[in-house]
């Protein structure tokens, strides 16, 4: 090995170690920031190591790409609001997949359009462009849905699953053919196109509430595409970093799908879009109890334990700062405020935690479902802000419900439940929520941010 190679490999090894240490640091919130700075340093080391590669003979395109990428990436890092985090993450999966896919295509083209590609390299390139291509379009669709450029309800047509499976089978067949005979540019490019179309058909039928699973899955695919790039060009740091990302996305999608009581096969095949419509429960003849902000304020002002249950509605209304204000008042009156975070509340894993942390709420008060579920029976008030399916008792009792079996937060055990909701429209799963009709539930209708502001105002008056 030449000294140059030793230097490059040492840089990659160091980078790999720093990446692992960085992820390890995310176990503890207090150390996480420093750990991720180490990981960023690792990235810098890997880049510097690469730049001395003997194959690199000209730097103008490299510099142009680095500058342009930084110019786009910097605002995406600094200015994107926390409420837009799900779509921000979705689009970044797309960028990662674009890089992996283009490197794969360029590699194939460069090696005599497949003529000089060995079978083992072809296997790696195939995984690279397939995972890459479907992640590009899949993430873009997810971005479109989250940014509300596309309908966030499932978009379906008859025989959709058959078409999707057909495309997947065709892509897999082309892949097998290419591994047998790599010198087949037509098949290669057709496979890339099929991957792109498959990504669209995979995500289009998926509804907004299922987005946490999709984003996690795309996270995993983007990582696997990077890993496959590593195999194709014989680079271990890519294999390692991609495997870490792939594992992370995989674990998150398992956690998310469990939290929604969906089987793992269901996740892998992405066929979890449409909730069975027959199971809709009508609420004819039931009445809801509306509550005025004044009355709600009195209950909150004298509560000893209030558990806040945030959901996507809080994110949409950007009400996290008003939540903090209200909590500060309750705490000033001697009460305790805790936050119950369901794993799939919001549109991506951990979405609610980030929003509440942004509002300066100390993270010890953000409780996971298992940790807080026994506390609800001691709570004077459970304040549900824009959450719906994660508090729907039908998940426990109604076998016909599409969300039957999904673990939920036991808000109904609280002495009083106050639900903040825009209107009586059902949630994303499209099902009625019997919680809203219970004796101890009071509905506070209106925009969450405005309602919270009223509550704060009322408590201050008292």
């Amino acid at each position: 090995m030449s000294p140059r190679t030793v230097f490059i490999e040492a840089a990659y090894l160091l980078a790999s170690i720093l990446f692992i240490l960085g992820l390890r640091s995310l176990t503890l919130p207090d150390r996480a920031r420093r750990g991720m700075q180490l990981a960023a340093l690792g990235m810098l080391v890997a880049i510097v190591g690469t730049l001395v590669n003997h194959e690199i003979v000209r730097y103008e395109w490299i510099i142009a790409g680095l500058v342009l990428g930084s110019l786009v990436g910097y605002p995406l890092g600094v200015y994107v609001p926390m409420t837009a985090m799900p779509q921000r993450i979705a689009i970044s999966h797309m960028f990662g997949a674009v890089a992996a896919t283009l490197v794969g295509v360029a590699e194939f083209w460069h090696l005599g359009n497949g003529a000089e590609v060995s079978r083992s390299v072809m296997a790696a390139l195939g995984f690279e462009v397939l995972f890459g291509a479907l992640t590009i379009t899949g993430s873009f669709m997810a971005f479109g849905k989250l940014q509300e450029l596309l309908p966030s309800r499932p978009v379906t047509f008859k025989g959709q699953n058959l078409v999707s499976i057909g495309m997947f089978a065709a892509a897999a067949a082309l892949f097998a053919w290419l591994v047998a005979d790599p010198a087949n540019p037509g098949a290669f490019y057709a496979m890339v196109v099929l991957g792109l179309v498959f990504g669209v058909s995979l995500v289009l039928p998926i509804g907004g509430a299922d987005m946490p699973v999709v984003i996690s899955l795309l996270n995993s695919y983007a990582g696997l595409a990077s890993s496959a790039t590593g195999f194709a060009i014989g680079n271990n740091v890519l294999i390692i970093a991609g495997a870490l990302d792939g594992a992370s996305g995989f674990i998150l999608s398992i956690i998310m799908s469990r939290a929604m009581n969906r089987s793992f096969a269901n996740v892998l095949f992405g066929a979890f879009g449409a909730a069975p419509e027959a199971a809709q429960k009508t609420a004819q003849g039931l009445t809801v109890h509306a509550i005025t902000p004044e009355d709600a304020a009195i209950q909150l002002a004298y509560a000893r334990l209030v558990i806040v249950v945030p959901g996507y509605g809080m994110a949409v209304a950007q009400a996290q700062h008003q939540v903090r204000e209200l909590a500060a008042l309750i705490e000033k009156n001697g009460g305790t405020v805790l936050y119950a975070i369901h794993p799939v509340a919001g549109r991506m894993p951990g979405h609610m935690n980030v929003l509440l942390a942004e509002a300066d709420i100390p993270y010890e008060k953000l409780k996971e479902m298992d940790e807080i579920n026994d506390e609800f029976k001691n709570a004077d008030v459970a304040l549900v802000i824009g959450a719906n399916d994660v508090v729907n008792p039908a998940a426990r009792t109604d076998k016909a419900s599409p969300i039957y079996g999904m673990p939920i937060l036991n808000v109904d055990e609280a002495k009083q439940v106050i639900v903040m909701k825009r209107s009586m429209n059902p949630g994303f799963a499209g099902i009625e929520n019997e919680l809203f009709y219970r004796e101890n539930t009071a509905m506070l209708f209106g925009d969450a941010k405005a309602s919270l502001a009223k509550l704060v105002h009322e408590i201050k008056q008292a």
Partner: protein
Amino acid sequence: MPGLELIEIYVFVLAGFVGFFTITRVPALLHTPLMSATNAISAISLVGSLVMAGADRGALPTVLGFIAVTSATINVVGGFIITDRMLKMFKRADRGGPRK
């Protein structure tokens, strides 16, 4: 020799295990930063893109390499910044949070 070689499959599987055992210990509290962190880290595909853009392999690989470098850099720069921005917000009660 690149490709699906045995030693690299070893590396992949072992790294996957390390990832699995590391990430299962990350609390749900930090799942969003975790996702943006792994996303930034997997932008390591920049390494492959750099070689593609800088090696003399003809016009097409150079252009594709340039686009790939740009995309990956967006994730490196944006990803690490936004992860840091998020992690900065997670505070304990004694160092921030609602003032009494």
